[in-house]
């Protein structure tokens, strides 16, 4: 695959191809997107085209209610004043803006679904409880489709004859909470992400890719793309993403802050080595103190020409475990309540100018498939628009080199997720170390040699 010289022109060409495919009436389109490439925007445009020019009944499938709210918000701003239907259970509390919007029509019963050209949004679980074996729509758009396991997709796929599956193949695989050995050798098994399974069953379905990230800057793309998307080249569309400080750096952690101000969009902050298990109160404290320091130095940011002061709402914290999220949240206090803290699973589809990351392998004695998962790390390192600080205990590189991926692969399955995760982790750490992007924490000692 070749990359067009101008990322914006390439992105426009990709959008043209997506829109045109719907006029050709392809039965299914699988659209792969790198992080921050505007896939939700593409879903929005495909839905608007479907309900207006193509005169179709269009259903949009999201994975969570939050994603449904976000997409509804975008679609409700359409220029034609078209109502957007939200298919959800009655007890679901809509956000205030959606509840007040005259264009958002909640629908709780199948009988109340619109009969003419329209857009109806609902999460996959809600759609799967529709009690009819027959199609009810002309077009089905699945947003964040790589998060939907095939068996859940199967439950909704016959609601419409034509499909667009849009998502990021580099993110976390669908979560299936049970033993799946029985289907491991089946590349289109029920546990597999639905776009992957669909392509395995029907290799000739139309597949397209978005070629540029609007969110990630060039420095981040140079780190993320080779580590997590080796088979999917993409480039950064942004030209101007920077941060600066009105207060000069004098504290130990300022070196890590200044590193990002100097153009290193991803850096690592290391705490002294310690086996802490999942909960690491010292790391959580360090992370919160660093956020405070970022704000106290009166940071400003430039985001594609828009210059303004950094506020707590511009900052996100992402962790592997809910307990780590909790450890950070409870230390933030009321002054930092706008800092968004979540697990990688729930951070998918969300971005912030600045991200603080609790490294999934920090403080661990082992390296399990969950913590090595390339998708999880990819999500964590691709949420920021400007800068990302990774917090972890020293010795992660040594921990990785000690660890042998067991190579527990299945016949007929090309992927080896554990090895891919191990490789991605090591590539990233060695790359950051070689680029001198390792900084000691405020109370830290010498930085470990990662190479």
């Amino acid at each position, binding site marked *: 695959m070749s990359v067009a010289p101008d990322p914006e022109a390439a992105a*426009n060409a990709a959008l*043209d191809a997506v*829109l045109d495919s*719907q*006029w*050709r*009436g392809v*039965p299914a389109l699988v659209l792969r997107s790198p992080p921050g490439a505007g896939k939700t925007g593409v879903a929005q*445009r495909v839905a*608007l*085209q479907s309900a*207006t*020019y*193509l*005169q179709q009944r269009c259903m949009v499938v999201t994975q969570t209610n939050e994603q449904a709210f976000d997409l509804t918000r975008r679609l409700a701003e*359409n*220029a034609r004043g078209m109502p957007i239907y939200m298919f959800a259970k009655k007890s679901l509390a809509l956000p205030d803006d959606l509840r007040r919007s005259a264009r958002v029509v909640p629908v709780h019963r199948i009988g109340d679904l619109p009969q003419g050209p329209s857009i109806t949004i609902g999460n996959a679980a809600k759609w*799967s*409880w*529709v*009690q009819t*074996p027959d199609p009810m729509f002309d077009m089905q758009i699945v947003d964040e489709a790589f998060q939907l*396991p*095939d*068996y859940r*997709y*199967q*439950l*909704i*796929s*016959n609601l419409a*004859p034509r499909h667009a599956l849009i998502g990021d193949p580099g993110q976390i695989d669908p979560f*299936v*909470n*049970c*033993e*799946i*050995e*029985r*289907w491991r050798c*089946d590349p289109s*098994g*029920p546990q597999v992400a639905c776009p992957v399974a*669909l392509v395995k*069953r*029907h290799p*000739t*379905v139309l597949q397209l890719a978005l070629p540029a990230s609007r969110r990630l800057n060039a420095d981040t793309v140079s780190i993320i793309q080779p580590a997590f998307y080796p088979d999917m080249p993409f480039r950064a569309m942004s030209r101007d993403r920077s941060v600066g400080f009105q207060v000069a750096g004098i504290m130990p952690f300022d070196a890590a802050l200044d590193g990002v101000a100097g153009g290193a969009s991803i850096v690592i902050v290391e705490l002294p080595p310690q086996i802490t*298990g*999942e*909960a690491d109160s010292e790391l959580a404290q360090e992370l919160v103190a660093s956020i405070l320091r970022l704000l106290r130095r009166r940071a400003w940011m430039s985001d594609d020409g828009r210059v303004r002061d950094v506020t707590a709402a511009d900052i996100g914290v992402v962790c592997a475990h*809910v*307990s780590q*999220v*909790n*450890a950070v949240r*409870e230390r933030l206090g009321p002054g930092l309540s706008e800092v968004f803290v979540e697990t990688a699973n729930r951070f998918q589809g969300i971005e912030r100018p600045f991200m603080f990351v609790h490294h999934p392998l920090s403080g*661990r*004695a*082992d390296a399990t498939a969950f913590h090595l998962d390339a998708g999880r790390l990819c999500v964590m390192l691709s949420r920021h628009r400007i800068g990302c600080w990774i917090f972890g205990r020293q010795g992660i590189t040594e921990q990785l080199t000690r660890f042998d991926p067991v190579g527990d692969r299945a016949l007929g399955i090309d992927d080896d997720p554990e090895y891919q995760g191990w490789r991605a982790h090591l590539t990233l750490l060695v790359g950051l170390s070689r680029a001198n992007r390792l900084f000691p924490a405020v109370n830290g000692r010498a930085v470990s040699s990662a190479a």
Partner: protein
Amino acid sequence: MADLLHVAARLRALQNGQAVPTVSQRQVVIQPHARILTLMSMAGEDTSVHAAAFGGFGEPAQVFVVADPRRRDDQNALLRELLPLFEDYYAQCRATGTFPQIWVSSTGALGHLDTLADRLRFTDEPEIRRLGELWTYAGERSPVAGQQALISASGALRLHYATGQQEAEDEHLLALLTWIDPPRGRDIFAAVATAEETPMGVKTDPLFDRSSLQPAIDDFHKAGSDAERAFHQTRIQHMLEGVIRPIYTATQRAMALLGQPRWRDNPALDELTQQEGDEFERFMQARDGGHFLPYHDSAKAGAMKIAARERAVTNVEAGMLRHDHAARERGVVKGSVLRGQLVDVREHHLGPWLFEYDLVLSSHQDSLHLRPGDELWLMDGAKLSMEIAEIERRGPFTWVTGRVGDGKRAAKKMSVGPTLDFGPGAPNWRSIGLELGQMSIRLTNEPWTHGDLLPPATPSLHPKPANLRAAIEDLT
């Protein structure tokens, strides 16, 4: 790492030179009529049965041996002998409204039985097929959370004890039993090394194969008369009985250990017993109805099985957290259970006869899997739920505030002071049936996405804007 309690127990076992009990309640259902099945395959013939030992709990084994399982007629004869044993046992269980339970020695033996069941279902002989179908019940249930149909003795013991060796080493049943009941005055590692010399898997020892079994099988094939053949058959029988009986006996020992009254009753198992009985009856009704058991699942069957398995995991976890003390403590350490002292009960008067209640708990747990909006249920006593509204750190404590949903009357009567546990709601096994029923409706017609044929493209007949992208951008 996720289970620090288990790591600590293993260290203690290493220190003591003896396995340490990690729970006080029984973790598996032990059917009084359970059967022990020990199978041995021939090296290089993974789906063969060279010898089988079968018997009830506390009963001596009936041993079946074939001279060479590669001789198909002989192999089938052995399997035909096993069929009535299982047919009768299953029929008895069905008649008494319960489920059959088969104990094998290890996870490897469990896998062997599962593989055999799949293979035997696709033979030409109806009796062998039937045996495969009956074994398939155990095999198909074995990966499902909370199942009680097929139990590996080593796996069951590991749910109750921690040893001072690697977890993989616990798969050798005799070594595991040695850790649990070590010989007096002897170094534990020397005792375990001795135990490990006795085969406990599904295959014989390679040295034994070379020096004894293989020559005996050769002699059997070279025999010039029926009498000579019978002699060598008996010789092989004796050899393999010497291997298979210790495995059978070790499995009996494991069952006896777990049947001891020291293990207290576990109410979580009552629901699993009921669930297993229902599953067994459904399975047998499907056999009565002549439903085919395929080797590979259709897309629809796969979807339904995986959904049922996911629900089972949730239900088993919820049941264990509620009724199993060790699971509850693990939940507290991991943070899936909120344990806190009730420090405030706030009543909000919203109108005539309209009240809301907030509970405030103070917890010193390091790890808490909580988010605002989560619904937690009181795990003991009254049926009471609360939706988490606020989580705040105050010094070494976490203060959690929740709005009471169900159980407002109970909340009104609460007074500050006691320590309460909150966690997931009670298991709902009925929900599996409801979900599968709904899935069945949704999947009545196979969607093209999960079939073989890709439908043709159907171009739109509507007029297409000249500048499509600009036209769509105008809509946003």
